C-alpha cells in the first residue's frame, strides 16, 4: 500500500528492534530497522521515514550524534524523532526538547501499544 507511513527503528538491541518493527508492521506501518547509529543515519537520510524511533545508547554513534547529524540535513532538520531509552535522565529530556524531538520514552515505562500511539501522534502531526 502506497499510503503506509514509514517508520525507522534505530536500536542496537536486536530483540527490541525486532519486536518494535514487527509490532509497527502489524499496526499498519511500513517499519524498517537499523542496528546502530551509523546504519540508522544512512537509512534515515536515504529513506526519509515519517517517524524515527531512536535509541540513545548505541555503539559507533549514539542517538544524540545521529540526531545532531540528522538536524544538519535539509530533510532531517524537521524530521520527527522519538527518542527511546532504558534510563530516565532529566538532562536528556531537556536536551531532546532543545533538539525538537517528538518524545522521550523510557522503554520500560511504556507498552508496545503505547509506543504505537506515540508514533501515530507524531506521524499525523
Amino acid at each position: 500500500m502506497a499510503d503506509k507511513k514509514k517508520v525507522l527503528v534505530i536500536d542496537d538491541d536486536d530483540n527490541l528492534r525486532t519486536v518494535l518493527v514487527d509490532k509497527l508492521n502489524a499496526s499498519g506501518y511500513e517499519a524498517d530497522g537499523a542496528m546502530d547509529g551509523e546504519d540508522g543515519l544512512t537509512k534515515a537520510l536515504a529513506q526519509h521515514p515519517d517517524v524515527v524511533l531512536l535509541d540513545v545508547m548505541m555503539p559507533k554513534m549514539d542517538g544524540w550524534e545521529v540526531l545532531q547529524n540528522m538536524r544538519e540535513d535539509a530533510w532531517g532538520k524537521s524530521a520527527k524523532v522519538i527518542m527511546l531509552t532504558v534510563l530516565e535522565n532529566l538532562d536528556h529530556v531537556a536536551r531532546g526538547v532543545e533538539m525538537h524531538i517528538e518524545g522521550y520514552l523510557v522503554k520500560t515505562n511504556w507498552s508496545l501499544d503505547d509506543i504505537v500511539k506515540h508514533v501515530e501522534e507524531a506521524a499525523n502531526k
Partner: protein
Amino acid sequence: MPVDQSVTRYLVSAAIALCVSLVVTLGVLYATSNFFEHPQTYFVGAPSSALLQTYAAAAAAVAISFLISLIVYMTLTSRARVDLAVWNNARSMALSREQFRRLYEASPIPYLTLGPLGEIQDPNKAALRFFNVEPEEIVSANIFSFVAEEDREKANQLAKYYELNVPIDRQELHMTTKKNGVRIVSLSLLDMHKPGTHERTGLATLIDVTEEKMLDQARTEFVSLASHQMRTPLATFKWYLDMILSGGAGPLSDKQKEYIERLDAVNRNMLDLVDTLLNISRLDMGKLPIEKIAVNVQTLTESVLSEVGPQIVKKGLHIVRQYNNALTSLETDPKLLRIVIQNLINNAVKYTPEGGTVSITLEQTGNEPRISVSDTGYGIPATQQGRVFTKMFRAENVLRLSETQGTGLGLYLVHSIAETLGGHITFTSEENKGSTFIVTM
C-alpha cells in the same frame, strides 16, 4: 638587645650584686664580732641590761646587712632581669614561629600566601609538589592564572571576590599543573590582614579532589551502566509478553494467557526492584534529581491506588480516603513523592490480611502538609521498630508469611526521599493491630 648579651649582662650584674652583698655582710659581721669581744669599749660599766641591748643591736645589724644586700642585689639586677624576661619571650616566640613555619612548610596540604591581587608570595612544599614546579616558577604569578580554561569565568569572579575581601570557601576549580595535567581542586582563600598595617595578604588552601571526583564519576557510570544492562532484558521481556498477550503472535488459550500474565507480573516486580536499587544508589550518591512543581497529591494517590487495584480487590480490602480537600497543589517533586506514596500504600496493602482496612489521610495543618497511610495489618513488633528505616529491614512476623515478598528497601527509600524533599516520616505500630505512617513535608 641580642639574646646572649642580655644573659651576660644578667650574670655580670648578679655576680657584682653578690660580691657587694658579701662585702657589706662581712663588714657588718666584722663590726658585730668586734663589739662582742670588746663590749667595754662601747658600754662603760657594762650593766646587765646592756648585754641584752648588745644582742639586740647585733641582731639588728645582721638584719640590716641582709636588707642592704638585698636592695643592692635588686637594684643591680633589675634591668638585667627585665632583659632576661624579654629574651625568654623572644625565644619562645621564635620557637613558635619556627614551629608554625615548619607546620606550614611540611603540611601535606598545599598552602600559598598571596598578595593583595592574588599574586603568589610563599608557596609551601606541598603547593610546589602540586604544581610540580620550583618556587621561582610560580612566585609572583597570579594564582587565578593557573585556573584551566573551562573555569575561566568562575576564576574571574573569584578573583573579584578576593579583591573585595569576600571569603572564598571550598570552591571547586580545574587547575593546570606543570606535569600532572588538569586537576580538580577545592580552593579556599582566607584573608590574613597583617595586624597594625594596611597590607593585605591571603592564604590559599588547595585540596586536590580529583581522585574523589573520578571515583564518584566511576560509581555513577557504573550504576548507570548496570541499570541499563539490567533494564534492557526486562524491557525485552515486557515487549515480547505485550506482543504475545495482545495476540500479535496468534491467539492464546486461557491457560497460556494466564501464564503469560503471571510472567508479566513477575517482570514488572523485577523492574520495580531495579528502579528501587537505582534510586537508592542515586540517593546514596546525592544524585537523585529533584524537580519541584505544584503537585495534586489527591490525583497522585488515586493513580497509585489504581495501580494496586487488583490486589485490593483480591484481598477484599476497604479503602478509606480522607482527603479533606487538602494538598491539591503541593510544591514538591512528583516522581519522588510518588515513590513515597507508592511504597506506603503498597506496604499497607501487602501487609494487611484479607478484609482489612487501609486509610489514606491528606491534611494541611497550618504550614505543615501531612500524608498518612494506616492499615489494620500485621504491624511491626515493638522490639524491631527501631530498625524500620534501615536498609534490608524486614520484620520477623512478616518473614513467615509466604504471600508477602519484599526487599526491605522500600521504607529505607521512603525515609531517604522524605528527608531529601525536606520532610520527615514517623510511624506508630502495634503487632496484629496495624501501622500508621505519617509523612510531613
